[in-house]
């Protein structure tokens, strides 16, 4: 991985020493730009949890509950609802841990995909789509900055990376991803909201994601 290239994607206001480590968390754990240490650890913890280890699952919780809850909160917006969604998602992680395949992606991606889908399902069942479309219309990327950031350095680094990454996309790519990922729009709703053909909506989602992937080099 090229750390130079990663750092270019980070917000200008953010400086990291030599791009090797960005700092240490409160517990002294070294945080690499990509949280690699954490990620590898999470894979093995999830494998242990699949075999019934509650202790491993508690470590998984400590590692990723902030991202699970934060993802849910961003999508459903309501803290109470987000807590319910996070609970459902984390219990599902425990229940289906044996289906995690380390060779098919990271544990982090596996867990956060579960959390995101749960959140999107909740949004879709809570709200009539038409109402949602009428009320929100065009995407609003401005989100109040959250306090209580867990694992501050890492989350800030990720947030900066996301801001910088999204800024590199075309407007359609960016808006499509924001509507779909953060607001739970289906691709049909995305095409309606942006007034573009369905095929274009699908293609912009794919192109945008691939551009982010290439920028972030997250491919495994």
């Amino acid at each position, binding site marked *: 991985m090229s750390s130079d290239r990663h750092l270019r994607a980070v917000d200008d206001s953010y400086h990291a020493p030599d791009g090797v480590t960005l700092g240490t968390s409160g517990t002294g754990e070294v945080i690499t730009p990509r949280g690699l240490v954490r990620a590898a650890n999470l894979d093995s913890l999830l494998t242990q949890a699949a075999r019934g280890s509650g202790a491993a699952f508690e470590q998984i919780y400590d590692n990723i509950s902030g991202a699970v809850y934060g993802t849910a909160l961003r999508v459903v917006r309501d803290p109470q609802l987000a807590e319910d969604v996070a609970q459902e998602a*984390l219990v599902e992680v425990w229940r*289906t841990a*044996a289906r*995690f395949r380390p060779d*098919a992606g990271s544990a982090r991606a596996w867990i956060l995909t579960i959390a995101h*889908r749960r959140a999107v399902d909740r949004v879709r069942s809570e709200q009539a789509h038409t109402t949602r479309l009428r009320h929100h219309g065009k995407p609003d990327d401005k989100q109040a900055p*959250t306090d209580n950031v867990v694992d501050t350095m890492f989350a800030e680094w990720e947030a900066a990376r996301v801001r910088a990454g999204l800024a590199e996309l075309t407007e359609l790519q960016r808006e499509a991803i924001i509507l779909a990922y953060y607001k739970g729009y*289906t*691709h049909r709703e995305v095409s309606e909201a942006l007034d573009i053909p369905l095929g274009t909506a*699908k293609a912009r989602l794919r192109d945008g994601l691939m551009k982010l992937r290439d920028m972030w080099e997250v491919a495994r």
Partner: protein
Amino acid sequence: MSEDVHALLGPYIVGAVSDEECADFEAHLATCSSCTEDVANLLEVTAVLGEAEAVAPPLSLRARVMDEIAVTAQVTPTATPIAATATVAPADATVTALADHPRRRRFTLIGVAAASLLVLAGVGIGIGSAVQDRQQQLAFEKDVMMVTSAPDAHAMDLELGSAHLVMSERMDAVVVMGDDAPMPHDGMEYQLWLVMDDGKAMPGPTFMPDDGSFMAMMHAGFDGVVAFAITEEPHGGSEAPTSDPIAVTEI
């Protein structure tokens, strides 16, 4: 059609698909290695989007989760060949491509005449549909429970959706059960077979998945039985297998 499914890659990654489209795409994944690879690394992209949202959850969440997992049973590993990332609920469709099973064993099944069978009885149902009679279903479920809770009950994976098989020599019975099974081809049903050490196959019950779920039971002695197999057979089942097995579990 496959063109359309292919185009769902982007929407699938960000969860912008309906349950039906999700199932279609996951079925497609099982046969498309290029999409499978894209899914794996594009989900790392959305993981970054999610991680960037991390905030401290309410303190109550931890206790709620730990309390619930203490009373939540875990699924057993399944032979799902596709990206595990694609197997999340509630569209918990673990789609398995029968044509693409890397670990599938080839058995040549030779039929035997029905008269020579040790098989005493077999019954298969798609849960909730085939057995209308509630009493009959309760009796069936009780039998299944007796087998699966027998002291010598032995569970094995079965590569048909997320399925497993439980055999008990003491009960002289085997039960196959699972979720997320694909439907057999039109006019076909699944049929369970006992594969003997001489390669012969003894017919068991036929069954159809209902919304992916299925359960079937067969009473039989297990002397000389080396494996269980599932084939697709014309409606009503066959005396001898007419196709290659789509799933084989060796004892």
